[in-house]
Structures are given as C-alpha cells and as structure tokens.
C-alpha cells in the first residue's frame, strides 16, 4: 500500500479503540446509494520503478529540440544550487507560515525576496508573490481601482502590444466587476504604444494606464513619455515588466516624474525552469502610499517577547481568511516554492550577475537576428531598439515555416498571425544566453533553405 504505514495488527488495534468492526463501518453516515460505483477507468497503481520508466519515455518524446521561442517564458541559466536547496524537504514540504515561530526560515526568505524585488523595481514595497504574471496584472487592475479614490470610470487603458494571454487572463478576472479594458494600438513602424491614440483619452477619467517594458514584441517603449502622460491625466500607472531586463533597463520606480504606482509581471526569468508554462510566480510591487491595497501575502519584520528579530505574516486583516467577502482578493496561496528558488537565484547572481545574464542573453539574440535578417526575404519588422526578442517578417506563410523547421526539431519562434493579423507573416524570435552557436547556425541554415 503505497505511503500507508499501517500493519494489519495496528488496524485491528485502532478499530478496537474506536469500537468499530471494519473500516467500512466508519463510513456509515454516508447514504449507501452514494457509495456504489466503479473506478475501472483509473489504471492500477504501479511501483515507482515502472512509473519512472513511463515518465522517462514520455519525457523523451518532448526532448532534444532547439527552442527559439520567448513570448513570456525564457530559458536562462539556473545555478544547480537553486533547485537543490529549494527542493530540500524543509522548504518543499513546509506549509504556509501561519505559525510564525515554526516557519522563520520561509518567513525570513520571503522578507529578503520582498526586499530584492522592491530594489529591482526601484519601488517602495513588494508582496510575497501571486500566481503568475498574467493574473498579477488582473490583481493590479483591481488594486488600482481600489486605490484611485478620485477616479470613478473603472476604465483601464491596455496597449495592444501587451502579451495577448495577459490581456485575456486579466479580462477573465475583471469582467464581472464592470471594469472596461480599452485597447491602445501600437505604431506599425516602431511597435511602440501610439501616443496619438493615447491622446484621444486625454482629459477624460481614466483609472489606470498599463505600460509594458519590453512589450510583447521585445520592443522598448518610451516609458518616460507614457508615464508622464498618465501623471498629467491623473491616471495610475501599472508597469508590466520582465524582471531580468530590469537589471539593465530603467526600472518602473524611476519612470516619468514620480514613477509607476504598481509594477508587476512574470518572475519566471529569475531561476524558474520553463516547465510548460508553470508553476511560475507573479510579482507585485507598489508605492508605500497604497501598500494596504496590495493583495496577497506580505511578510513583516518585528521582534519576539525577548526583543529578538523575527518575521511574520502581516496585514492579514485584508486577506480572505479574515475579511472574507470584502477581502482585497480571494487569493489564498502565494507561489512559495518558486519564490524560494528565485530568492536563492538572485542571491547567487547579485546585481552584477543578473546584469551579465541579461546582457549575454540580449547579445546572443542579436547574433541570431543578424544571421536571420541576412537571409533574402527575411526582415526585422520594427525599426526600434528591442530587448532579447525580435519580430521578423517572412517571405512565406509563418505556420508553414514553423512546421517545416519543426521537422528538424527547430522551434523557430512564436507565430504572431493569430493575435496580430496586421503584421502579416511574422514570427517573434528569441535567443537566450543558453542557446549554442551551433543551434543558431542550424536555424539560419534551415530557414535560408526554405525561403
């Protein structure tokens, strides 16, 4: 019986203590009609050795690809120590730190995490994480509405150049609360948010403006200009950023005149493997002024009865288990294990290591783009600076190119045709520092053959 330690003798002993004849008796409060069914469609249990064989076989099917896809998930180098420590039983199998005295390891780590994220974003405060970047955006929108007491419109301006899945997920979260997400188009030449389009809303009641950096296309937007526009129009600023990029790019706390109000995004580039899109973690930082409106768990430093430094969950009164229907959010979990890994990762790399990783990744991608754009018929779409990924236009149908290259195990990029038909046959291509020169050369060679 996997993972069940009871011997027959012990079962007898326990049933005697209970005063029951069989384990089945313990279910006698449940109506018998509810208890008859078969579970034939569930396979029999297997010993660990056989499950391992099964999983090895399945993993092999998906192996050995050359992956040039970014689009919100990036394959960066993760030091071995990160996951060896994060999967220690004391971190892996620990619960939420509600009994603070028994959880000082996790709590101190989360405090360090909060401090590192706030520093990376150049903002005052951070929470202990949300589920992922997309849902963090949804929560940021709800937070902006709560915090912006003067605005009544619940209108949020969202650039079309934001990750389409983020917009979709945020919409699922906010749509039943009379919140309107308004699309702002991008300039077709530069790929940046169109200020002209934005100015149509100048002087009207807008609750918040969302600004991505880099945006979904890898393009670097004019964040200072956009932030100042929001400041002048009394809208809150929600920044959606790549945290690794923030080690070399101007962070949200320094945008415009007063910086962003809320910064959020996907923490995956900080030590989390690709793993089919999850588990990742959403980070959220804010200004001190609106800290009480921040959803999710927050860890605070305090002292114990002897005056010794300690850490505990704080501001819990805003959360679902106390405030219930009036909570800042229904969220119960944070992504504890992922944040554990990210904190160890950030400690190992430090500011300099993160900056070198970001620069190396960007550099490798420049090599890729330079080789691809030399192919006749292949063009870089936007004439603006980008970070780590680029939109290239192809002389053939993008879905065909992808299929053809996939036959050689080259995953050539993200097909933009479905979400951005106006871009024509375009791919979003990415290379991180982990990509080998041989893989890049192979990609260029194979694409040239097709074009």
């Amino acid at each position: 019986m996997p993972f069940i330690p009871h011997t027959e003798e012990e079962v007898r002993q326990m049933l005697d203590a209970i005063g029951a004849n069989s384990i089945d008796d313990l279910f006698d409060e449940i109506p018998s009609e509810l208890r008859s069914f078969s579970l034939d469609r569930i396979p029999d249990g297997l010993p660990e050795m056989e499950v391992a064989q099964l999983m090895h076989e399945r993993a092999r099917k998906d192996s050995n690809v050359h992956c040039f896809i970014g689009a919100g998930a990036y394959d960066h180098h993760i030091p071995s120590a990160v996951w060896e420590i994060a999967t220690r039983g004391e971190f892996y199998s620990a619960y939420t730190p509600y009994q603070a005295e028994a959880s000082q390891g996790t709590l101190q780590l989360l405090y360090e995490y909060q401090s590192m994220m706030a520093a990376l974003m150049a903002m005052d405060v951070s929470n202990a994480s949300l589920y992922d970047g997309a849902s963090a955006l949804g929560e940021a929108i709800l937070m902006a509405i709560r915090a912006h007491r003067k605005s009544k419109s619940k209108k949020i301006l969202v650039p079309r150049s934001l990750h389409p899945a983020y917009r979709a997920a945020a919409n699922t979260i906010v749509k039943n609360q009379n919140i309107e997400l308004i699309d702002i188009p991008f300039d077709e030449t530069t790929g940046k948010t169109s200020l002209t389009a934005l100015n149509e809303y100048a002087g009207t009641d807008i609750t918040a403006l969302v600004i991505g950096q880099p945006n979904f296309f890898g393009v670097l937007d004019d964040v200072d200009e956009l932030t100042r526009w929001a400041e002048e129009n009394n809208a809150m600023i929600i920044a959606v950023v790549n945290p690794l990029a923030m080690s070399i790019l101007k962070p949200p706390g320094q945008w415009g005149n007063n910086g962003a109000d809320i910064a959020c995004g996907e923490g995956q580039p900080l030590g989390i493997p690709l793993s089919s899109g999850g588990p990742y973690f959403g980070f959220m930082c804010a200004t001190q002024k609106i800290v009480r409106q921040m959803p999710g768990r927050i860890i605070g430093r305090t002292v114990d009865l002897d005056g010794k430094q300690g850490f505990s969950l704080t501001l819990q009164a805003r959360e679902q288990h106390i405030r219930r229907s009036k909570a800042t959010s229904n969220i119960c979990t944070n992504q504890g294990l992922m944040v554990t890994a990210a904190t160890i990762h950030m400690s190992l790399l430090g500011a300099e290591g993160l900056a070198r990783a970001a620069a190396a990744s960007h550099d490798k991608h420049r090599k890729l783009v330079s080789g691809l754009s030399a192919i006749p018929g292949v063009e870089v779409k936007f004439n603006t600076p980008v970070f780590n990924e680029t939109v290239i236009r192809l002389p053939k149908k993008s879905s065909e190119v992808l299929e053809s290259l996939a036959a050689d195990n080259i995953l050539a990029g993200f097909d933009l045709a479905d979400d951005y038909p106006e871009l024509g046959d375009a791919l979003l291509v990415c290379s991180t520092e982990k990509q080998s020169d041989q893989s890049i050369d192979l990609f260029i060679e194979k694409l040239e053959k097709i074009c």
Partner: protein
Amino acid sequence: MLIFEQSSKGRRAHAQSPATRASLDDLPSELLRDTPPLMPEVSEMQAVRHYTRLSQKNFSIDTHFYPLGSCTMKYNPRACNSLAMLPGLVDRHPYAPESHSQGFLSCMHDLQEILKEVTGMKAVSLAPMAGAQGEFAGVAMIKAYHDSRDDTARNEIIVPDAAHGTNPASAVMCGYKIKEIPTRDDGDIDVDALKQALGPQTAGIMLTNPSTVGVFERRIQEIAALVHEAGGLLYYDGANLNAILGKVRPGDMGFDVIHMNLHKTFSTPHGGGGPGAGPVGVSKRLEPFLPIPMVDHDGTAYRFVSADDRPQSIGRLSAFAGNAGILLRAYIYARLLGREGMTRVAEYSTLNANYMLKKMQAAGFEAAYPERRATHEFIITLRKEARELGVTAMDFAKRLLDYGVHAPTTYFPLLVPECFLIEPTETESIDALDSFIEAMIKIREEAETEADMVKGAPYTLPVRRLDDVKAARELDITWSPDS
C-alpha cells in the same frame, strides 16, 4: 542575519555568470538603468549556507507531524518531484508545438481522465492555479451559465457560515452578493434556513462535503434537489476530498461544478505557501464554459483545445497552461497510487482521524460534534480549558511546537470557540498519532499547574512569540541599509 547583512562589495558567485558583461550599445542610454539595484553581494558558499540554515528553521512534513485540519499534510513522494523535473518535461517551452509535446500532453490528458473518473464529473479543466482560482472559475461558470439563458435576476450565492473565506471572496469577485445560512449544532447545515434563503435570486450554493466542521453533510441529496428546484447550481469546494476519495463522488452527490486542491488530495508540495493547483470538474450543462486550456485526443494525437473550440469558455486564467509542473506531480502520484491506492486514501485517513478522536475523548478532551463520526478530520474545542485554566487554543498550539509537533488548524472554522481542527492524513503511523495525544495530555497537565509557562510558549524554537501588532503598526516589509 539577513543575506544583505553578509554582503561585501564586489563579491559574487563567479561560476554563475559569463566572464564579461556584453555591451548594450544598441540600446538608448536614456532607457538604461543608471544605478544597480541593492541586491546581496555574497559568494556561492555564503548563499548556499545561508539558505540551507534558513531551511533548518522550518517545520515541514518531511521533519514533523503536521496535523493541520483542512490542509491535508500528507507525505509528498520524492519521485513526484524528480520525475516531473526530467529533461524534456522541465525544459519544455509552453508554446512548443503539439508535434513535439505528445509526452507532456498525454500526461495532462490522462490526469483529466483520472480526475473525471474519481470525482464522477463529465469534464475537467486543469487550468486554475490554486484552490481559490478554481473557486473563482467555478462561480464564473455558474454566472456564465445563467447569463447564457438570460436568467440575469440571479445575483446571490448562498454560503454556510462555516465556509472557508475564499468562498465568499471568490463569489464577490464574480459580482455576486452573499447570503449566509447557519450550521446546526449537529454539524449539518440548517435545511430550513436554506429553504428560506432559496428563491429566484439564487444563482447557486457553495458547499464543502465533508464540511469545514469535519462531518459529512448527511442531507446532501435533499439539499441538491432543493437548490436545483429553485433553479440554482451546486458548487463543491474540494478541500476535503481526501476524506472521500474513491468512496463517494461529488458528481453522484448532485454537484454541478467542483474544484480539487491537488496540493492537498494529490500530494503536490505545499512549498511554504504554494504553488497549488485547483482543477475544476463540471456536469454536462456547464461543459461549454470550462476555462482553457484543456487537452483533447483527436483520434491520432493529443492537442490543446483552443478558444475557437470553446466559444463560451469563461476564458483563460493564466498566461500559459496553469501550474503544469504541479499537474505533472499530481499525475505521477495518481499513477503510483492507482485505483486501489486512491480508495485507501479515504479509508486510512478516516481510520486515523476516528482513532485520534476516540483517544482524545477518552483522555477528557471535548469533541465539538461528539455524536458524529470523524471524517478525515475532526474538531475538539478547548473552551473548557480556556475558561477554567485561562489557557487558550492558541497557547496549546504554541506549546505543541515545543513538543515537536506542528499545531493543528486553530480558530477555523470560526463557529467553534477555541477549536483545533485536526487532520492526521493517511500517511501517518499510529506512533505519530499516539505521541500527539500524549503531548496534548502533558500540556493540559502543565496548564493546570503552570499556566503562565504554557502561555509563554514556545521556548525551543528560533524565536518566541512575535509581536504582530508592532509588525502591522510599524510596517517593515522591505530591508534598507539604515534599518
């Protein structure tokens, strides 16, 4: 000491970065960062030592008995982690084409099928990333269903007063109002109050069964009939699925939509607070509204079900495929257990809980629902001890830590004063259960003779009781060099 306080300017884990910093001359200087962020500057050895030592300050399932009611702190099999992190799976990009993802997709599809079968539901989506997201999705589907039928007068969700806080919070996020109904002294909900609360404004009811007070809702079939008759739908909070896995199926009880907590019932890691996974299962009528993505088999290969295939879907909840790595761990667990193993989960978790209940009653502790069977968990109330000895449930909880046991859930559900909600799970042996009971007896003895000592516990942990008021009043949530 914090990691920042061990920093020394210029220190770094040199093996983890390239030898030089690549130039960024193609990026405009006004968009570059001018000062580096304040991050730790430590060696690799220092970081490893620091975080290893922090881990040693934690209680965890791997190190301590952790009978937290409603949390299902069962053993997390190591194989679930190592096999989920195999190359091919751990480095698969979420947008890898289906042609190169059959391994991953087959695991997801199999898991959908297993969860359908064990819960008796018609369709399952693995998309929600946690229980609370599953609840949100479930209530959003109920709303989508009523909206699709132009039944827009239904603006209320009924919730028992003992419900977990995420239930009303999730319903409000979907634009609903809450109507609370009371729980009776015998642990079942008040069906007469339910009848009063039902009406044309009822969108649905959110229930847990076994309920949050640890007992089986005996009149569930009657409740289901009443709610359906009033035109409402039934939502099942799967937090206590461990009590009935393989023994009773929510689909058979009449529920229209359920969520499961894989980090409870399917033993995925609690990780110090997450990540979880909260798949949802539905009856036929809610199938069109399931969140995406889901996985299908088209006769030849596995593929993702797209937004076009499901025009009425409530939408996506995450950027990619939810907590995929967690779903893999749950799948591996399900293959290790198999059909029989799953049924034994309910049997042995229930055996352990009933044994503990009887022994604690025999030792003179007061059960909150003495006439009822324990399910996989039960409640004792320490109100007598609080009244007579001045020692509260919180004090017992803190003193238990000195005895090397993580305290059970305290003060939830809110209905029972000074309560302990105790859930041993099926993976604990009789020795662990007996030690817990002995510790409780000893603490009560201590409370009788040295109450002040108990009220000052814990004494043997890295810190003593913490000043929560100071933490909230003098908010210190970010380190700075002058703090």
